[in-house]
C-alpha cells in the first residue's frame, strides 16, 4: 500500500475518521491495528519480526531502567509474541481461501506450514526459557545486568539486520575472496527476502534502548504505546527514524484536534504528492534509460541522467517524508523536519544537517560521538568520520556502490574539515569562489555522489565516470525526455524552495494573501493532476 495510491487514501480516510471519534487509549489501539494492517499489505509474515523487536526492547528497557518487569507486562509481551507468531508465521495466508477451507479443511491448511510451526515452537520455547531465566537475570549486579541487556538487544537486532539484509552480500564477497586464493568452496547463498522497513524499525528501537541505558529517557510501561511507537504506519515504511524521546510522550498523551495542524498536514501531503508523483515519477524514465543502459551514452546523457536522479531522489524521499509528516499531523502528532533544503548547502557538513536529518543525527549520536567524535585528535576524527559514513552507506543497502557512496561522502567531509582547519587556505578559497561558488561546487560533488548511489554495478560506475571525464564534447541526447509534469514541476519546486530559504521558514506560504495561496495551491494541483499520468513507482527508500 503506497502513499501515492488510491487504496492508501481510502484506508487513511477510514482510520482518520474512526480515530477522531475515539478516546485516547482506543485511538492508540486503532492506530496499532491500522499500522499492522498497513504493513501486512506488503508481507504479513515479517510482522512477526516487528513484534519480536518490539517485545525485546520493551522488556529490556524496563529491566535496564527499573531492574524488573511487572508480572502483568511480562505476560502481555510474552503472550503477544506467541500469538503474533501463530498469526503471522504459522497461518499460510497464501494458501487460505474460503473454498480451500471447505475442500481441504482448516486443519490440513494449518499444518501445511511446517517451517512456520518450527518457528512457532522455537518462539514458545525461547519465551518460556526467558521467563524462567528472568529471576536469575534479576540477581545479576545492576551495572552488569544493564550492560548485558543492552549488548544482548543490540546483538539480536544487528543480527536480524545482518541476516536479512547483508548475509548474501557478505557471503558473496567472502567466496570471491576465497576464490582468489584458488579454493572454490560450495556457495551458501540463501534465498532471503528483505523485509520492508527493517533498517528503519531496527534503528528506531535501538535508539530507545540506548537512550534508556544512558538515562536520557524513562521507558514506557504501556506495551501498546511502545508497540505503536515501533509500527506507527506513517513512519514505518521509510522513516523518519524518530527518537522514542520525541514520539513516545506524544503517543502517551491526549491529542486534540487542531484545525491549524490539520491544514498544515494537508499542505504537507499535497506538497509530498506533488514532489513524488509529478517530479520523481516523471523523471524515472529518463533515469532508467541512463543507468540501465548497456549501449553508448553521450556526455550529455550521463549528465542529464545524474542530474535527474539528483532531483528524483530528493523529491522521492522528501516527498515521502512530507506525506509521512502530513499524515502524522492529521492524527495530531508532530514529527521532526527530515529535509531542510539540502541542495542549498554550501559545505558537506551543512549538507548532512539538511539531508535525511533523522538518519544523519542518528549516526552522529549513536555512532560518531560514541566513537569519540572530534574529541580525540585530528586523525581519529577523520577515522570516525570515514567509519560513520562507511556504515551510513552500508545502511542503505548491501552493495558496493552504497559503500562507495558512503566512503565518497566521508572523504569529502574529511577534506572539507582539513581545508576548514587550515584557515588561510579557506580564506583564500572563500574569497576566490565565494558563497554561491561553494554552493555550486558542492552541488556538483553531491551529484557525482548520486551517480555512485544509483549505478547498479561497479562496471556501470566506471563506465559513467569515464564518460563524464573523457566524453565532454559529445552533446547528443539519446535518453527519453522527462515527463511534462516533471518539467513544469521542477521550476515550481525551485521557486517554492527559494521562498522557503529566503523566509527561513517552510511555512512562508501562510504569510501570503488568500489569493496568492490559492494561486500556489492551484499551480501545485494542476501539475500534480498532469503528473498523475506518470507510471506510479515505489518510493526509493522502501528498498532500504
Amino acid at each position: 500500500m503506497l502513499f501515492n495510491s488510491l487504496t492508501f487514501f481510502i484506508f487513511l480516510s477510514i482510520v482518520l475518521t474512526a480515530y477522531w471519534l475515539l478516546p485516547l487509549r482506543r485511538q492508540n489501539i486503532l492506530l496499532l491495528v491500522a499500522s499492522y494492517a498497513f504493513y501486512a499489505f506488503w508481507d504479513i509474515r515479517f510482522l512477526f519480526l516487528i513484534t519480536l523487536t518490539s517485545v525485546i526492547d520493551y522488556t529490556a528497557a524496563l529491566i535496564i531502567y527499573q531492574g524488573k518487569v511487572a508480572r502483568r507486562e511480562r505476560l502481555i509481551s510474552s503472550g503477544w509474541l506467541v500469538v503474533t507468531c501463530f498469526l503471522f508465521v504459522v497461518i499460510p495466508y497464501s494458501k487460505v481461501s474460503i473454498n480451500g477451507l471447505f475442500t481441504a479443511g482448516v486443519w490440513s491448511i494449518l499444518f501445511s506450514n511446517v517451517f512456520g510451526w518450527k518457528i512457532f515452537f522455537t518462539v514458545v520455547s525461547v519465551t518460556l526459557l526467558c521467563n524462567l531465566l528472568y529471576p536469575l537475570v534479576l540477581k545479576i549486579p545492576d551495572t552488569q545486568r544493564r550492560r548485558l541487556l543492552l549488548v544482548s538487544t543490540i546483538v539480536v537486532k544487528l543480527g536480524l539486520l545482518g541476516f536479512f539484509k547483508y548475509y548474501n552480500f557478505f557471503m558473496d564477497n567472502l567466496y570471491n575472496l576465497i576464490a582468489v586464493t584458488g579454493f572454490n568452496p560450495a556457495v551458501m547463498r540463501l534465498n532471503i527476502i528483505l523485509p520492508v522497513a527493517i533498517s528503519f524499525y531496527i534503528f528506531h528501537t535501538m535508539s530507545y534502548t540506548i537512550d534508556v541505558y544512558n538515562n536520557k529517557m524513562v521507558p514506557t510501561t504501556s506495551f501498546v504505546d511502545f508497540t505503536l511507537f515501533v509500527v506507527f504506519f506513517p513512519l514505518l515504511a521509510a522513516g523518519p527514524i524518530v527518537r522514542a524521546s520525541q514520539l513516545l510522550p506524544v503517543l502517551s498523551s491526549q491529542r486534540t484536534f487542531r484545525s491549524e495542524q490539520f491544514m498544515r498536514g494537508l499542505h504537507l501531503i499535497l506538497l509530498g504528492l506533488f514532489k513524488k508523483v509529478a517530479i520523481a515519477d516523471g523523471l524515472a524514465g529518463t533515469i532508467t534509460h541512463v543507468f540501465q543502459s548497456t549501449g553508448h551514452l553521450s556526455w550529455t546523457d550521463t549528465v542529464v541522467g545524474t542530474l535527474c536522479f539528483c532531483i528524483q531522489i530528493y523529491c522521492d524521499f522528501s516527498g515521502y517524508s512530507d506525506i509521512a509528516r502530513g499524515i502524522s499531523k492529521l492524527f495530531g502528532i508532530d514529527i521532526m523536519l527530515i529535509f531542510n533544503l539540502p541542495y542549498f548547502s554550501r559545505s558537506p557538513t551543512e549538507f548532512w544537517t539538511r539531508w535525511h536529518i533523522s538518519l544523519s543525527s542518528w549516526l552522529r549520536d549513536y555512532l560518531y560521538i560514541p566513537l569519540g567524535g572530534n574529541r580525540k585528535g585530528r586523525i581519529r576524527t577523520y577515522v570516525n568520520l570515514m567509519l560513520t559514513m562507511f556504515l551510513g552507506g552500508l545502511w542503505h543497502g548491501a552493495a558496493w556502490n552504497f559503500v562507495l557512496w558512503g566512503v565518497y561522502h566521508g572523504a569529502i567531509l574529511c577534506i572539507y574539515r582539513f581545508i576548514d582547519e587550515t584557515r588561510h587556505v579557506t580564506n583564500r578559497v572563500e574569497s576566490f569562489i565565494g558563497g554561491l561558488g561553494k554552493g555550486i561546487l558542492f552541488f556538483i560533488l553531491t551529484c557525482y555522489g548520486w551517480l555512485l548511489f544509483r549505478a547498479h554495478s561497479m562496471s556501470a560506475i566506471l563506465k559513467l565516470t569515464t564518460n563524464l571525464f573523457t566524453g565532454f564534447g559529445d552533446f547528443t541526447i539519446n535518453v527519453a525526455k522527462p515527463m511534462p509534469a516533471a518539467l513544469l514541476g521542477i521550476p515550481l519546486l525551485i521557486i517554492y524552495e527559494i521562498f522557503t530559504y529566503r523566509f527561513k521558514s517552510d511555512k512562508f506560504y501562510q504569510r501570503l494573501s488568500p489569493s496568492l495561496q490559492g494561486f500556489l495551491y492551484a499551480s501545485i494541483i494542476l501539475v500534480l493532476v498532469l503528473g498523475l499520468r506518470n507510471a506510479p513507482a515505489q518510493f526509493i527508500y522502501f528498498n532500504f
Partner: protein
Amino acid sequence: MVLSKKIYIVFWIIVWLVVFDCCINILFPYPVDTEILPNAFQEYFEYGRSVEGKIKRKLPSIERQDATQAKGGWLDTNRLKCIPIEGADSGKLITIYGMSHANAFAQAMIKIASYRIRNITTGGAPPNWSYAAFQMDHKLVHSDVAVLSVMTIGVADMLGTSGMTAFFEHPYTYTFPHYEISDNGLTMEMPPFYTRDGFISCFRDPVKLKRYTQWLSQNDAFYSEFLFKQGLTDYSVIVRALKRVYFTTFVYSKTEKIYTIEKGFNESCNEVNVLKRIIHEFAQTARTNNIVPFIYIVNNQLCNDDMYQLLKPQLEADKTPFLSTHIICPPSNPAVYGSDGHFTIEKDHELALAAIKIISGMDSVAPKQIIFE
C-alpha cells in the same frame, strides 16, 4: 487560521484552477482545421478528450480521406488489393504485416531493394490485426514470403478490438477481430465494421454508434463508456488530464495480467496462448499456400528479450524462420531508439539486412530453422 481565510483560500484555488483551465484552452487550442498539425502542447492537452470527441472532430477530414490516422489499418480487401509493390523490380515478393516498427522495417527493406516489398502495416497493430490482415491478403495477392510482426507491448493490445479503445490518447480508427482458441484452431469474432465506409457510417448514425458501443462493451476489454463517449467533461483541461489518469490505471489493470516489464509475460493467460496459436497457424497457413512464413520479433525498449523468449519454443517447434531485434537492438540500450521509441534508421537498416540474409537462405517453404546470431 480563521475559518473565513480557509474558505477564501479554497475559493481562490477554485478560481485559479478555472483560470488555468481557460488559459490553457485559449493558449493551446487544438486546430479546428484538420490540415494543420497540432504542436506538442496542443497535442498534450488534448490526450484526455473522449474518443468520440476526437473522432467526430476528424470525421470530415476522414471523409475527405486526408486524415493520416484514418488512411491505414482498414482490413478491407479493396484496400489490400491496391497496396503497391515497392523495392526491387523483380525477385521474391515479401509482404510485411504489422505495426509501426514493421513499417520502418519495411521501408528499410524497400531502400535496400533486394526484393519486392508490400507494406501492410499500421500504427500500433496488435498480432490479431496482423494475422487477420495476412488471412485476408494471402488470398488476394500471392507472396513468396509473409512477415508477421509482433512486439512485446502489443500482446496486451489483443484484449481490444480497435485502435480507438486500445490507444485512447491517440486513437486509431481501424478495427480488428478478436481470436479465441477452440478445438478447431482459432475462432474469430469480427467487429461490426472493418472498413472506412463502415466506420464513417457508424459515427454519422447515432443508432449505429450506440449499437457499436454496446458491442464494444461486450467484446472489447479496453472499452470504457467514460473514456469513449463525448460529453461536457471534454471542455476542461483538468478533467481531460484526469481522464488520462483513469485510462492509464484502467488499461494497466487489464494489461498487467498479461505483461509487465518487471514480471515479464504471464504464460498462463489467454492472450499469450492465443498469440502462440496465431504464430503456429500463420506458419501452417503460409506453408499450405506455398508462402515462406517469417516472424519479425520486436523487443520494445526496456522490455528485455521477453518477446523472443516467449515465442522461441513455438518457433523452434514449428521450424519457422524469425528475426528477433534484441541482438541488433538491445532493449536496454537507449542509443538504438529514437525519441519516439522506434529504432533509429541505421538500426532498421541493419535489421533489414539481417532479415534479407535469413530470407535469402530460404530456398523452399519447407520448415527450416535459420537463427540469426
